[in-house]
């Protein structure tokens, strides 16, 4: 799996929380349907606009809140990666563990405007705004986290090690 993705950017604000991304009522729905309710409080209707390969850019404290598996909803919509000025650590771990690229870029919203074409590489920590030519160098992910992302998340790793039988119905 490639550690680098390029896509169209969507800009979100500070302190966007998990209950906004994945509302409680959606937790009783199948994933595909739950994903249509992402950002129901702050940006209703957004899931209909996003295209596979897009990149979501957040501000400070992105993903504050609960442990619900929000990265699965992003993946359901085809979002290729996340950039945030600061991630909530539980949310960040969740992204890695479900195989969703995530990179911390402290001045992301100064470098990226909504709609820009952005390339991010978790291996090198490099972000390139292909629309404007602006670049940023973030701290790359530690090797063992890159391995999790490259494997597609924890479940494929557990399958490879024989601890988990191949998915039956998921």
């Amino acid at each position: 799996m490639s550690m680098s993705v390029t896509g169209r950017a969507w800009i979100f604000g500070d302190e966007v929380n998990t209950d906004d991304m994945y509302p409680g009522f959606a937790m009783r729905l199948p994933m595909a349907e739950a994903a249509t309710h992402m950002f129901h409080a702050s940006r209703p209707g957004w899931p209909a606009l996003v295209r596979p390969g897009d990149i979501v850019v957040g501000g400070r404290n992105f993903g504050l809140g609960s442990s619900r598996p929000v990265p699965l909803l992003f993946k359901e919509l085809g979002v290729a990666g996340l950039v945030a000025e600061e991630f909530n650590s539980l949310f960040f771990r969740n992204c890695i563990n479900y195989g969703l690229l995530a990179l911390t870029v402290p001045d992301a919203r100064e470098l990226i405007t909504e709609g820009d074409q952005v390339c991010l590489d978790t291996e090198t920590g490099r972000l390139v705004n292909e629309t404007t030519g602006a670049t940023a160098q973030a701290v790359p992910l530690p090797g063992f986290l890159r391995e999790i992302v490259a494997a597609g998340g924890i479940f494929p790793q557990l399958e490879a090690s024989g601890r988990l039988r191949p998915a039956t119905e998921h």
Partner: protein
Amino acid sequence: MADTLIVKILRNRSGGTPLQAGDIAVCDVDLAAIIDIQFSHDRFGDITAIHDPDRVAIVMDHAVPAPSIRDAESGKTARAFAAAHGITKFFDVGRHGIVHQVLAEQGLVRPGMVVACTDSHTCAAGAVGAAARGLGPAEVLQIVCTGRTWYQVPPTVRYELTGAPHEWVNGKDVFLHVAAEYGAATSQCVEFGGPGLDQLPMTDRRTIATQGAEIGADFTLFPADDICLDYVRSAAPDAELSPLAADRGAEYADVRPLDLGRVSPMVARPGTVINNAGPVEQLAGTRVDQAFIGSCANGQLADLEVAARILRGRQVAATTRLIVTPASQRIYQQASRLGYLADLAEAGATITNPTCGACFGYHMGLVAAGETCITASTRNFRGRMGSPDASIFMASPATVAASALQGAIADVRELEGIRP
């Protein structure tokens, strides 16, 4: 080497190598707790072998008794998983409660342990000096299989407590005071210490530790002092226990004095607690449609006791619905025996079974567009408890009970004929 509390615990559980903030520690996890809703998405049925059934607990809390067929199926999967892997620490409906409350009252979380659970308020066990944090569902499943995970050692901010809290002041007020004054603690450990600790009972510590997730802290830790050890000993009489505290001279990102005597009843405004709470006077008079006392933060026996004391012989305002959810079956039993549930019910409160239900807007007590709720639960995010167009204020159980009486946000200190 002088260690902070978190460094001490993570170091001990990762082989003893010295650690400092920023280091990655791979730790043995002493207890991994699985909750009911995890069985609806996750692949427990595909696990070939678990690491150690004694280090796994299953607690039914978020969606019980099952409000949907999907949740009923999760319960069935949970029971089958427990049976298949010989997990005896299984707390099914009727012996259940909110996971953090159950783990504490069963003595399953103790000082120095590393605890994992797929609920963000797992940090609650920091009240007993355990390195506990919420982790994602996939990671908890991995820990169930391997018995280990990694932590990045966070920098620690220490609150040096002095003084004694005023009557009516709850751990919720202390927490909201900190969140209002200092804001976010993203990826930090928040540690409490100092002479004022003696004035903070375990229930208040539990509320504070639980709410650490709301300011984005990785861990919220209290030392294992006499008050803590007495509590844990009563829950786990056979466990080997010893005091646990940060070393003198440990390095902190910041040390902040906190005079508990300066804390007054607080209310958080809707949206977040971060830099968004103030003394109750600022918001008194705001009309409320619903009032909620419950959750892992404030569904404890002491919380029900104070609410019962305020409501005894009185009536909830006709325009307000009061919902009370004991945090566990054991609390429900105790509150029933002590007469608190009768006092609350006679005052017009609706008492639910123990569950996370209303706190996360899943079942029993959602709010409609345009409605206002004052809650003693964990979170006041927009849309958390129902419609994104409802407003959620957060306060202590005493303030919520007083507000339910008045039908509007009220200062409990001004109620006549009620003593703290």
